[in-house]
């Protein structure tokens, strides 16, 4: 009866059921707008998991991660919109986005191999801005990206002739577009989660973590740090590229201003707040940071109802709470809200660090 494996199985089945029903429940209880939030949570979870490979595992502080998101989004936008009159299918564009982003990741990684910590952060920050400014300005002399206006009328993803932009009738049940995207994103986020967690407990993942902990010692162990850092950049970037392509199809519109520094910082915060190097923590971080601003929208009407007028704009409140959350986490939970088990144990034991600390 109390077979732990059976309990686990039951728990897993219940969890899966909850995930499948989530959009309908959220739709009924909170409204359609929250299904959209759910979609974005999954999308950002994918991004955060990608960045987690670079920052959380390999310990390379990357402040320009949004560039890979942009690369994927623009690849999809350019190849599936009237802008060039191209309408390539998504099953071609998603792998292409992953590959292109990985290539750009290597391009960024190669010249920065000798940099660590702050210096790497500065270079990657600049790199992220370069990509954004390129997208902004590549509308002349040849109009490649349509500049600041962005690209509109991007084709939604079609699976077996069924467009995800329109509701689907399924056995008498109407499944709205947002729900369809939810299931699509859920699949990809689950894939990202499985890939991340399996890599963590593998020869490759251990080598990454070794580099994060002490690069010199990792080399002395026979780890080819150059190749493994490039691999981390490429793989993390490919997550970002796929997420970008999905985002472009989901929004139907992309413009350079969606890919600014604040986005990079947000994704990094998801990783840090949730628990660097721990996939579940990272997903939790993504969920909190996407949902929080949406929840804060309610504070506007609430203030008006209670106090007669809006004293603090919800968007200001968001930044305020955001900063507060970061300070609190840094003070009370330095390894993140949901740290990986080894770290949690260490913090509980409260041992003084013995060896040289070399994280970033």
């Amino acid at each position, binding site marked *: 009866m109390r077979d732990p494996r059976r309990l686990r199985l039951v728990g897993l089945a219940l969890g899966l059921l909850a995930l499948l029903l989530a959009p309908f429940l959220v739709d009924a209880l909170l409204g359609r707008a929250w299904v959209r939030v759910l979609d974005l949570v999954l999308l950002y979870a994918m991004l955060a998991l990608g960045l987690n490979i670079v920052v959380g595992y390999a310990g390379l502080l990357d402040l320009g991660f949004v560039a890979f998101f942009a690369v994927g989004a623009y690849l999809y936008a350019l190849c599936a919109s009237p802008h060039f009159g191209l309408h390539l299918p998504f099953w071609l564009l998603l792998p292409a986005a992953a590959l292109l982003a990985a290539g750009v990741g290597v391009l960024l990684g190669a010249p920065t191999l000798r940099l660590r910590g702050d210096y790497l952060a500065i270079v990657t920050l600049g790199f992220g801005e370069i990509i954004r400014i390129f997208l902004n300005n590549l509308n002349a002399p040849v109009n490649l990206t349509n500049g600041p206006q962005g690209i509109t009328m991007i084709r939604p993803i079609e699976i077996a002739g069924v467009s995800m932009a329109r509701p689907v009738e399924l056995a008498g049940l109407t499944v709205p577009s947002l729900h369809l995207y939810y299931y699509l994103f859920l699949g990809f986020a689950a894939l990202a989660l499985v890939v991340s967690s399996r890599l963590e407990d593998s020869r490759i993942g251990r*080598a990454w973590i070794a580099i994060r902990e002490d690069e010199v010692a990792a080399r002395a162990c026979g780890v080819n740090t150059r190749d493994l850092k490039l691999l981390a950049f490429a793989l993390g970037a490919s997550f970002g590229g796929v997420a970008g392509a999905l985002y472009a199809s989901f929004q139907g519109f992309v413009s350079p201003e969606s890919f600014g520094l604040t986005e990079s910082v947000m994704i990094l915060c998801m990783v840090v707040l949730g628990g660097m190097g721990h996939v579940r923590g990272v997903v939790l971080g993504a969920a909190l940071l996407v949902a929080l601003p949406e929840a804060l929208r309610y504070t506007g009407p609430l203030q008006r109802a209670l106090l007669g007028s809006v004293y603090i704009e919800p968007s200001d409140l968001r930044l305020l709470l955001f900063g507060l959350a970061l300070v609190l986490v840094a003070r009370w939970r330095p390894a993140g809200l949901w740290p990986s088990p080894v770290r949690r144990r*260490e913090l509980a034991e409260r*041992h003084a660090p013995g060896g040289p600390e070399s994280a970033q």
Partner: protein
Amino acid sequence: MSTSPALHLDDIARAFGGVQALSGVSLSVPAGCIYGLIGPNGAGKTTLFNVVTGFVAADRGRCLLHGLPITGLSVHEVTARGLARTFQNIRLFGEMTALENVMVGLHRQGRAGVLASVLRTAAARREQAGFVERAMALLDRVGAGAQASRRAGTLAYGLQRRVEIARALATGPRVLALDEPAAGMNASETDGLRELIASLRNDGLTVLLIEHDMRLVMGLCDRVAVLDRGRLIAEGPPAAVRTDPAVIEAYLGHAPVGEGH
């Protein structure tokens, strides 16, 4: 077995700015022995270690490992050719368990790439299981088996040393270079270390040992080389070296070297 020495250094020189850390050091480490490298602070011992293991490039000279040149190779390539090292200030991966630390040492002997790891192919799982088994055996070998699942950063100092040696052994070395392994150890920890190093030699390993603990060096080493200000001033069996006038002068002591620090 080949008759070439385990390690042969030929006229190794290295300067840092105006400081000539090493000025033409040549020596041969016979296979299967414990070879001590001593000298006063700043004599160039660690620099020599760093040059041999590829951390620092030599200005001139060459270095042969079992007859094959390793000069100019990067660190991980030197390790792959069978020369492993530990560090003067222990450098474990603090957030990882002792077992995982040793498993990183096995990295090069694995094949599983990204795809195999993600798919958890039969080969990848077998490799992983083999890694765990071998890492466990190595931890047992150095006497840290009971701490396998402890976070490395929380281990007692002496145990950290042992885990670091296990991790170096995991790379499959023929020559093991230990940089002041007894530094900071108490007498009983040092005794345990002495036994461990002696047993490694009995397994056929060549051990290159930098050490300040003279009792350990003189009792353990088969041969000793003495560096002073970047030059080799004496080389030979411990008994001969300790009475060498040049060595006594280098240490600026009237007392015999054997009285310890």
